[in-house]
């Protein structure tokens, strides 16, 4: 009997080119996504060394971080952002890499367009100079973020030097309650294991509640693996995975697809496979989550209250709590539901897909954004998500409620373009990071699900979405 293997073991074994005497492997990388922020220095490195991409057809590039979400036809007004986007275009032309430019309706956030185009495939290794590459693990692909030197390394060699990580199984058992979403699952997991809980590990998500998620939901969970400290998240392949990929423009077609699907079905952890760590979470116990601090692990159910650092024994942790409360302008004991908000952001690679917009629109339908909210914006994850949402009339639901309906991109997830918080402004956001200054210097971010964000826009404060319009 062969030793039972995890899904991670199987993908790893399929991609090892060689392993040296130190135990470091040369790992073959099947696909790379490229964006404007982390690639210019990699292309420059190739140029300086006189190197060429080994397989240019395995890379797909798109500008997303810097692009404006309004008045696209005017181009990018910020000259420095424009140089970066133009550098991407010039580099792709020079090195023969396919690019979806800003005018292309397929343009969008790298982690939204990869799956959408069928560029992301089950069982592959995939990297991008972006930590949320973990998103693609939802397809049973080993996908992780790399730095710019490694972007260059993959361009030049189609390989990376890697040591195998440890493995962790996070099993979310049972059924989710009504109104509780993939975002709440992953925030609850991070609350449980901490932002360093997955360091050095690849997390595989299993259990009934994960199986029951749509592909969009699975992407949301895998997306935030990095916030749990893990470089990659993985979910076993089932018919849902295969059905999602079938017929996508860059996916294999016809006979070749069936052949691939046959192989993909074997990509699940074997019964009895061992993990270095196993965590069980009871799905039924998860309530809608809201972060209160400046790290994703500073998270509580919406009916909770801001914690008191004086009650924390560990001095380093108490210190971080104090810093976080000062930055967030919060007082211990305040119920999360009483925190007034200034802005609402629905979008990002965590929650900018069609299903997320449907969930938010469901809450917003026929209602109005509270007068106290200065700006509530919806930013679709890609041009195709935008088109689909418009075909379903979601844009009208949003605009009639008083939300702004924008062009696709990263937008206020990291505020590299014009969309940002002013100092002291407080935002309910469906993105993935609540770090200091992430959405604008001095800005205060609370991470929530799309439905929770929409409800927060309507009420001007957090409410338990399970009590909305039932």
């Amino acid at each position: 009997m062969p030793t039972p293997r995890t899904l991670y073991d199987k993908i790893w074994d399929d991609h090892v080119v060689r392993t040296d005497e130190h135990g470091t492997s040369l790992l073959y990388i099947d696909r790379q996504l490229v964006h404007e922020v982390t690639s210019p220095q990699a292309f420059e490195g190739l140029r300086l060394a006189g190197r060429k991409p080994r397989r240019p057809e395995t890379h797909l590039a798109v500008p997303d971080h810097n692009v404006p979400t309004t008045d696209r036809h005017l181009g990018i007004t910020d000259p420095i952002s424009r140089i970066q986007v133009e550098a991407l275009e010039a580099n792709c032309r020079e090195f023969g890499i396919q690019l979806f430019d800003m005018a292309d309706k397929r343009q969008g956030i790298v982690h939204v367009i990869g799956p959408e185009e069928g560029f992301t495939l089950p069982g592959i290794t995939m990297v991008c100079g972006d930590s949320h590459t973990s998103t693609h693990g939802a397809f049973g692909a080993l996908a992780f973020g790399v730095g710019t030197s490694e972007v260059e390394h993959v361009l030049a060699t189609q390989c990376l030097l890697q040591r195998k990580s440890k493995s962790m199984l996070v099993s979310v058992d049972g059924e989710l309650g009504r109104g509780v979403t993939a975002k709440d699952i992953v925030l609850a997991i991070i609350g449980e294991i901490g932002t360093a809980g997955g360091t050095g590990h690849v997390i595989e998500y299993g259990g009934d509640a994960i199986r029951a998620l749509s592909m969009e939901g699975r992407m949301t969970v895998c997306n935030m693996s990095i916030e749990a400290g893990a470089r990659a998240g993985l979910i076993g392949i089932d018919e849902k995975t295969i059905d999602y990929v079938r017929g996508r423009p860059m996916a294999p077609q016809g006979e070749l697809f069936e052949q691939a699907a046959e192989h993909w079905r074997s990509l699940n952890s074997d019964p009895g496979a061992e993990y270095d760590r196993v965590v069980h979470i009871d799905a039924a116990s998860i309530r809608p989550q809201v972060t209160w601090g400046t790290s994703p692990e500073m998270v509580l159910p919406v009916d909770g209250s801001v914690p008191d650092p004086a009650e924390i024994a560990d001095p380093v942790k108490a210190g971080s709590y104090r810093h976080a409360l000062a930055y967030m302008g919060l007082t211990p004991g305040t119920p999360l539901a009483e925190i007034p908000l200034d802005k609402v952001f629905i979008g990002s690679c965590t929650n900018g897909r069609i299903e997320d917009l449907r969930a938010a629109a469901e809450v917003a339908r026929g209602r109005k954004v509270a007068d106290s909210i200065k700006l509530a914006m919806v930013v679709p994850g890609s041009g195709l998500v935008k088109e689909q949402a418009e075909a379903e009339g979601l844009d009208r639901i949003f605009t009639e409620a008083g939300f702004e309906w924008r062009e696709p991109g990263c937008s206020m997830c990291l505020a590299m373009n014009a969309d940002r918080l002013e100092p002291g402004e407080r935002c309910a956001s469906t993105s993935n990071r609540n770090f200091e200054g992430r959405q604008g210097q001095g800005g205060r971010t609370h991470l929530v699900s799309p439905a929770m964000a929409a409800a927060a826009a309507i009420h001007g404060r957090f409410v338990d979405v399970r009590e909305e319009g039932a």
Partner: protein
Amino acid sequence: MPIKPFENFRGAVLPLDRANVDTDAIIPKQFLKSIKRTGFGPNLFDEWRYLDRGEPGQDCSNRPLNPDFVLNDPKYADATILLTRHNFGCGSSREHAPWALADYGFKVLIAPSFADIFHQNAIKNGLLPIVLDEAIVDRLFQLATDSDEPLTIDVDLQNLTLDADGHGTIEIDIDPFHHHCLIHGLDDIGLTLTHADDIAAYEARRQNEAPWLFA
């Protein structure tokens, strides 16, 4: 990019007493618009270090400094070793973070843990991240802050030890491959390309097993 060999080295310690320092804090996103690898040092920890909002391309020498931030304490002006708390470098994969740390002048980073991608990026840029037990890190924080003089640490990369101003030798543990790269300063793309035959053989085999990846 080839990196310079890392030699044994002696430096002063700057204690940054915060856990979970993320790469957005190390180098805020507005500086990511650069298409170069250098020049990020003046904007290292920009939002903590200055009282105004930093913009790319600006002259930082006249900006108002935050007197409460440790980087602005004259005692640590010459520090080349950054001592910090767990999960340093979490968040975004931006290599601009190690570029900024190196450009500022840091050579060695000491913490109870580092985020994975940051750790990898640091090594690629000739920075040495050293993981030490929480208790030892606590002790180093004490030594670094107790006296009016900065704490000096000697790092011996041949023997894998460090010495804190005569307070005893501490063993350090470094991945053997990283160790090899640091002391030899290898260009790892060049190194990988020496295995071009293996890569080609892998591709030929894989093309049979998974033809849809080559279509």
